[in-house]
C-alpha cells in the first residue's frame, strides 16, 4: 500500500474515533446529577426563569438532538460557556493552553536529555553495575507521586536558593522561564523511568540484531557503529515511545500545574471539577482527548514516513 493511501486511511479512521470521544464527553453531562439550569439561575429563581434558561440551553430537547447539536457546536469550535465566569470555554482554553505547552515542551526536552543517554548506557552495560543502578532508580522513580516530587523540589531547591518561585507563571518571558524550570523537571522525573525502560529494550533489540553483528565483523569502529547503525535504528521506536506516553504526560501536567499553581489547562480542569463547572470540564476533557488522538495520528504518520514497511492493521 502506498504511503499516501496509508495516511488517508489513518485519517479516515480518526473520524469515528473522534465522534466516540465527543459522545463520551457528552455523556458525562448526561449522567451528572443535578440541573445545570438551576446551577446557573441559583436556588431562589422563579420556575419561569428556570424553564427559560433550560430552553435557551436546549436542555428540554431529546438527548439525541442534544448530542447532534453538541457535535455540531464542537466541530465549529463552540464549546459552550463556563457556568462560573460566563466566558466562552474556547477563550479560557486559548488563555491557558500556552502555559501547558511551555510545561510540556520544557518537560520533554529535560526528560529526553536524561533518558536517552541513560537508556543507551543501560543497554550497552546490559546486566552490569551501571545497568542495575539505572534500573533501580527507574523502579523508585515509577512509584514516586509527581506532586510529591514537586514539593520536594520546592523544599530542596526553590526555598534554599530563592532562584525559582514556588508557584505561579509570572508576567514576562524571563519570569516564565524561571517559573517553568522546576515544574518541567518534575514532569521529566515522572516520565524518565518509563522512557528509559522502553529505550533500553529497543536498543538491546537493535544491538542483538544480525546486521549489527555483520557490521561488527566487518570491522566498523564502535563509535561509528553506534552512530550510523544502532542509534539510527533505535530512533524510530523512540518517536513511538514518546507518543504513546502522551496520556501519562498530560495527566502529569494536570497534577504538576496544580502543585506549582501554574495557570494551564490542567489546573483549569481541576478548578472546573472543584467548582462543578460542567461546560468547562467537558471542554478541557475533550481538548485532552483530541491532543492524544492527534499525537497518535502524527506518530503513526511519522513512523510510516520513516519506515516504508509499516502497514495499517485491518
Amino acid at each position, binding site marked *: 500500500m502506498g504511503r499516501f493511501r496509508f495516511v488517508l486511511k489513518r485519517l479516515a479512521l480518526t473520524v469515528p474515533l473522534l465522534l*466516540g470521544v465527543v459522545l463520551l464527553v457528552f455523556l458525562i453531562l448526561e449522567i451528572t446529577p443535578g440541573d445545570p439550569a438551576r446551577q446557573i439561575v441559583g436556588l431562589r429563581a422563579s420556575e419561569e426563569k428556570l424553564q427559560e434558561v433550560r430552553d435557551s440551553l436546549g436542555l428540554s430537547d431529546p438527548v439525541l438532538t442534544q448530542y447532534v447539536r453538541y457535535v455540531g457546536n464542537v466541530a465549529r469550535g463552540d464549546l459552550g460557556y463556563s457556568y462560573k465566569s460566563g466566558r466562552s470555554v474556547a477563550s479560557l482554553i486559548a488563555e491557558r493552553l500556552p502555559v501547558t505547552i511551555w510545561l510540556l515542551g520544557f518537560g520533554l526536552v529535560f526528560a529526553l536529555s536524561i533518558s536517552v543517554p541513560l537508556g543507551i548506557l543501560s543497554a550497552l552495560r546490559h546486566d552490569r553495575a551501571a545497568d542495575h543502578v539505572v534500573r533501580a532508580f527507574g523502579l523508585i522513580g515509577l512509584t514516586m507521586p509527581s506532586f510529591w516530587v514537586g*514539593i520536594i523540589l520546592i523544599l530542596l531547591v526553590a526555598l534554599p536558593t530563592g532562584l525559582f518561585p514556588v508557584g505561579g507563571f509570572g508576567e514576562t518571558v524571563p519570569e516564565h522561564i524561571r517559573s517553568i524550570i522546576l515544574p518541567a523537571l518534575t514532569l521529566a522525573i515522572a516520565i524518565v523511568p518509563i522512557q528509559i*525502560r522502553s529505550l533500553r529494550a529497543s536498543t538491546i533489540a537493535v544491538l542483538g540484531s544480525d546486521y549489527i553483528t555483520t557490521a561488527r565483523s566487518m570491522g566498523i569502529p564502535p563509535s561509528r557503529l553506534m552512530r550510523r547503525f544502532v542509534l539510527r535504528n533505535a530512533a524510530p521506536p523512540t518517536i513511538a515511545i514518546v507518543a504513546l506516553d502522551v496520556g501519562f504526560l498530560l495527566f502529569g501536567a494536570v497534577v504538576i500545574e496544580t502543585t506549582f499553581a501554574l495557570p494551564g489547562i490542567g489546573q483549569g480542569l481541576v478548578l472546573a471539577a472543584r467548582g462543578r463547572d460542567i461546560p468547562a470540564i467537558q471542554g478541557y476533557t475533550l481538548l485532552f482527548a483530541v491532543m492524544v488522538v492527534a499525537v497518535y495520528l502524527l506518530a503513526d504518520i511519522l513512523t510510516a514516513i520513516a519506515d516504508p514497511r509499516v502497514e495499517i492493521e485491518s
Partner: protein
Amino acid sequence: MSLADDLTREYAPSEPQHQLMVERRRLPRRVWVGAAIVFVYILVAVFAPLLAPYDPLALDPLHALEDPSWAHPIGTDELGRDVLSRLIFAARVDLLVGFLGALLPAIVGTALGAIGAYRGGWRDALTMRTADVVQAFPTYILIIALVFALGQGLTSILVAFTIIAWVAYARLIRSEILRLRGLDYVEAARAAGLPTRRILWLHVFPNAVGQTLVYLPSDIVIATLGLAALSFLGLGVRPPTPEWGAMIAAGQPFIRDQWWLSTVPGVVVVGFGLGLSLIGEGIEEWTRR
C-alpha cells in the same frame, strides 16, 4: 494509553505460558523482599486501630502544627490531629482502593475480552471499539471527569477505575486467547473431540490468565498512585478521611516550617509502591526466563 498498557506491550513474553508452568524454578529473592514490605503495610492497615496512638480524626486546635516529639512522633497537622495515627489509618483507604482498583478492572476486562474472543462477531467488535474510544483519553483525565459525574467518593472512584482500566486487560486476554487457540495442544484437544466450550474454559483460559496475574502488582501501584493524585487534587477521598495524597496536599502550605507534613506521607507511598514493584519485576523476570 495507560501505563499498564505500555508495560503490557513491553513485557509480553513470546514463549507459551504452559511450558513455563511445567518446570518449577525458585522465585527471585526480590519477590520475597517485596512481599515482606507489602505484608507489613497490610498488617498496619488491618490492625490500624490497635497500632495508632490517637484517634486519626480527633481535633486539638491548641496543639496544631507541633514539631515531632515523643507524644507525636511525626508532629500534629494544622488541626492538631496526630500525623502518625492519620498515616496508619490512611493505609486502610489507600490499600483498599489500590487492591480493588486493580482487581475489579482485571475481572471485568478479562471477562469482556474473553467473551469477545470466544464469541467473536458484534460482541468482539463492540468491546474493541469501546476500548479504542476509552483509550483515546488520558486515563486519569477521564477518571477525573467520571468521578465528577458520579459524585465524589470511594465507590465512584472504583467504578471510574473499572470503566477505564478494563481495556488493557480485555486486550491482553483477547490476544492471549487468540494466540493459544492456534497452538498444537488445543488442536489436539479439538481432534480428541472435546467440545469448544470445554476446550476454551479448561485448556485455553487458565493458560491465558497467567499473563494477567503478572501485571496485577504494577497495576495496584498505579491505582494507589491514582487515588493519591485524585485526593491531592481535591477530587478523591473527602476530608477528614485520612489518605496519603490528601495529607501531602494538606501539608504543602506548611512546607517551609513543617516540612515533614508533606514529605513523610510521600515516603510511605513510595515504600508501598516499591514493595509491589519488586514483586512485579521479580515475577515478570521469573516467567520470562
